[in-house]
Every structure is written in C-alpha cells, then in structure tokens.
C-alpha cells in the first residue's frame, strides 16, 4: 500500500503545503511573502500574521492540485524548526490539529535535515554515505550523512550564514532585498579577479566557515575606493569578486571534507544552492570522479515537499523502532534554534 504524506512548512517567510505518494511529490504549493522587501529583511510578527492568513488556501490548493482526498492521507508532517518560532507555530499546530482529527501519525520534521535530503526528492532509496552542504540565508553547515537516521556535523559557520552575507553585501551595494539572486545575476557578467576579497580560514577547524570578515572587507573596499560617489560602482565586478570568494570557501571546505572522509558523493542544498557560481564551481569536480547533487531549483528554497519527503524516508526507516514509536510526537514543541551537538 502506498503512503500518502501531507506536509506543511512555515518556518520563515514561505507558507507551503505538499502531498506526496511514497517518495514522489504530487503537489507542492509555496506562497512567498514579498512584502518584507519594504523593510529590508524579514519582520517575524508580520511573517506569522501572513502565515495564518493564507494557510487554509495553500492547503486546499495542495489537495486540489494533487487530486487526492484528505481521507487518503496516512502520514502528517510539519517543519518543527529551526526557524522563527511564531511562524513555525502556525504551520506546526495546523498540522497537529489535522493529524489529531484524522487520527493519523504525526511527525515533527527538522527543517535543515530536510534540506540535506532535498537533492534526492523522488528517489525511493539513497546511497549512503554522502557529504552534505546546507547553505542558505540562515545556515551554513557541513554534514557527514550515514543513514536516514544518523548523521554528524563536520562544520558550521562561526558567524553569518553564506546567504546572509550575500543579502547584506547586496544591501551595501544598494540592491533590493533579497539580494542573493541579484548578485548572482550581476556576477555572471563581472570579473571575479577584479578585487581579491579574503577567504576565511579558521585555525583548528578546517570545515568551519566564517563570512563576517568578507562582509567587512567589502564595506571597507567601498569606503576606501568609492567614498562619495556611489553611482558609478562597478557592480558586476564587485559582485563577481565577492561571489567567487564566498563560493570558493564553500567549495574548498566541502571538497576537503569529502577527500578526508574518502567519500565521492556530495549533496549541496538550501537557498544558496541555486547560485550559479556555486553550482558551476562544484560541477568542475565531476571530472575528478565526484557525484554532485543539487535539488531542483523549486526545492532549493523553503518548501513542504522536502519536509514530506524526509518524513516519508524516516517513517519507512523507523517502522518497528520502539524508541521512536513510543513517544507521542503530537506533544513535541517547535524550536527556534539549532539544536544539534557537534
């Protein structure tokens, strides 16, 4: 019998609902909150308000698109965190209400973990182990993934996430929020050798990242070279140089981790995985025998399909696992902060 999974994601500024049959996505509706642009960043209270406003419509559309009746749903999944707590609570509680009323199993699913499996959406099986880089506006983490239920963190960022650095530098350059995609676009026609921004090296932790230094370096570069007139900034060249420094650092450390652990499979996910500089940089390593996986672009930013896919994999892997099955997941809480141990 097939498993029909209904999943909800609301951890930041995207409200999303998806329906899956086994590992395959049948529908995935994402509603993004564009109004945050006016504020130059996400305002948590406004994000939560928008979630509760649209959630009914998004869910209804997900079922309509899927052509599935809600009676057929056999597993409910929702993003549990990390994320903005007020936003998370909306989707998380909606999902709990649904699971409770239908008397079906509920799973609180880790958002970051879902990103790292998002490269394989649609596949019934994944080949382990692999190295996973999750890189987004909130996180930059390097994982060694051994199975559906076990993985360990190799490296994390000491300060800013890579996507955050992109957005903040975009702001310095006078670009709109979110600036990441705009920098990518400008960089495609710029000269990456124009200026050498520093790549961070952290003593004693070869897989850890830091992006606050490069941000400051861009700030001073602009201050020193274009103190008054900002109208004639060589935007393309600055964007290209900045992007090449950030992606270079991400790629170098990921490849190093793969080499050190003798693993040839690499999965790169999260919002920044849509960056073409990062994609092309990684793909160069295919010649050296690495298999590089990216999520489809629709699954690189926040979406419910990845939550449902992760839930399905876990559900399948944990059947008969008493330790997992004996707790009541309905009573679990959403969490705002990253909870893993290194």
């Amino acid at each position: 019998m097939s498993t029909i999974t209904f999943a909800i994601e609301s951890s930041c500024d995207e409200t999303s609902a998806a329906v899956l049959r086994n590992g395959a996505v049948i529908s995935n509706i994402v509603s993004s909150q564009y109004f945050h642009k006016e504020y130059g960043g996400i305002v948590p209270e406004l994000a939560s308000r928008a979630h509760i406003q649209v959630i009914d419509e998004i869910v209804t559309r997900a079922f309509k698109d899927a052509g599935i009746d809600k009676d057929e749903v056999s597993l409910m999944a929702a993003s549990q965190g990390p994320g903005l707590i007020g936003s998370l609570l909306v989707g998380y509680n909606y999902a709990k209400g649904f699971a409770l009323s239908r008397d079906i199993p509920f799973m609180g699913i880790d958002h970051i973990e879902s990103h790292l499996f998002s490269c394989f959406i649609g596949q019934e099986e994944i080949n382990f182990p692999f190295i996973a880089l999750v890189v987004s506006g909130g996180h930059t983490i390097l994982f060694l993934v051994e199975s559906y239920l076990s993985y360990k963190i190799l490296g994390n960022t000491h300060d800013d996430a890579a996507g955050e650095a992109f957005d903040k530098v975009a702001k310095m350059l006078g670009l709109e929020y979110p600036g990441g995609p705009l920098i990518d676009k400008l960089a495609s026609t710029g000269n990456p050798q124009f200026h050498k921004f520093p790549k961070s090296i952290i003593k004693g932790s070869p897989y850890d990242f830091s992006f606050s230094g490069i941000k400051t370096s861009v700030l001073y570069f602009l201050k020193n070279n274009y103190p008054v007139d900002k109208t004639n900034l060589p935007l393309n060249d600055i964007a290209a140089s900045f992007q090449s420094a950030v992606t270079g650092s991400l790629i170098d450390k990921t490849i190093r981790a793969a080499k050190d652990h003798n693993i040839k499979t690499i999965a790169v996910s999260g919002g920044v995985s849509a960056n073409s500089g990062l994609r092309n940089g990684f793909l160069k390593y295919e010649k050296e025998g690495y298999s590089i996986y990216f999520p489809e672009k629709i699954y690189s930013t926040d979406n419910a399909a990845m939550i449902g896919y992760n839930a399905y994999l876990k559900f399948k892997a944990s059947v008969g696992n008493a330790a997992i099955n004996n707790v009541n997941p309905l009573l679990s809480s959403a969490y705002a902060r990253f909870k893993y141990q290194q």
Partner: protein
Amino acid sequence: MKLLLINSTDKNAFTAIVHGSEQAVVYASEFKEPESIPGKTPDKLIHCLDKLTSESDIKDIDAIAVTVGPGSFTGIRVGLALAKGIAFGLDKKIIPVNNFELTLGRLNEIQPDNTYCVLLEAKLPEYYYAVYENEKIIKKGSETLEILAKTLGNDTIVVGDFDDETQLKHCYFSVLNVKLRVSEFDAMSKIAQKEFISDNLTDAKDVQPLYLKDFNFRKP
C-alpha cells in the same frame, strides 16, 4: 449539537467538548510544565486536546468554537491554527469567539442601560478595551489606564478578569471583577451554543485573529 471549544487566552487556556449534559473540560493549568517547554500556555493546548480526545471522541463534532482575540498574538494564532487544522480534517465550520464578548459573558447579568468597558491585559501598561452601550461595542482599541481614566465617563463600569484591582481603584472606576463569577468555560460554551443555534458559522479560511493593535514597525 456537539461542539469543540478551544480557548487560547493566557489565564484560562482550555479545550472542551460540550454535548448536552456530557461535558468534558481540560484546563492547561492541569499540566505541570515540562522543563523542555518554556512557560507559554497556548503551546500546551495540544496537551489539552490530546487528553480530551482520550476521554471523548471529537470525530462527530458539529463545529469548533475558538477564541480569536484580542490577546497575545502568538497565543491566538496557536489556538486558531489548531482549530483550522481540525476544521479542515473534519470538514467543519468555526465559531469565532471575541475575547471581549467572552469576558462580558462572565457577568451573571448585564443591564442594557449601563455603559461597560471591558479590559483585557495587553502588554502592560496598556490594556485592550471595548466600550459597550446597549450591548454593542461603540469603541475599542488599546490604551493605558491613565488615558482611559480621562476619556471614560464616570458612570462607566469596568469589567475584566483582574488578579489585582488596586491599580484600577486608584482611577475611581466602578469595577466588576469576573474572576469569581461565571467560569470562562461556562461563558464560552454558552456563546458557542447560541451562535451555533443562530447558524453563525464561518468557513475556516475566513476566520482571522483580531489584533486591534497595529504592529508598529518603522520602515527604514
């Protein structure tokens, strides 16, 4: 008529089933707070629901009554999100319950000639207030007691669930504290049944929190 009640107010959060004489109520305060969950009452509503469903079936309910505010922003949304999820799961409609009505409903009786001002704690020192004349709200908003004392007429009766009335006495209001009067459960179940009989049911998608206070965030 079998109704599910979800009340997400800070003080008396509960879930309940009302079905003629069969009534089951589970209060949030009946739960010892697990260490891992910080002291937010609304997040514990699911504990109430879980316990409630172990005592009583919710599959055959006719509608869901839920508090929509004003009150704690996140609290209201948690209760409402649960209600919406259940409404979708069971194909049921929602009875939105306004927290001012709920508080006023806790008085044993209301004199239509009197002017009442219902106060709900917002972020202190401010209160959410609604002024009732002839059982209709003529004015509502969020203000400090000082300003309310200046603007309200002397004959206004202040109604609320107060732990400490001393601050209000200072303002020379006549105060009706509902704390020891009708319980919030009785008041809510009365309102819900009345609305259900009058067919005042709303599609889940049209039920939204009542915020009253604008979220003030200055644009850069």
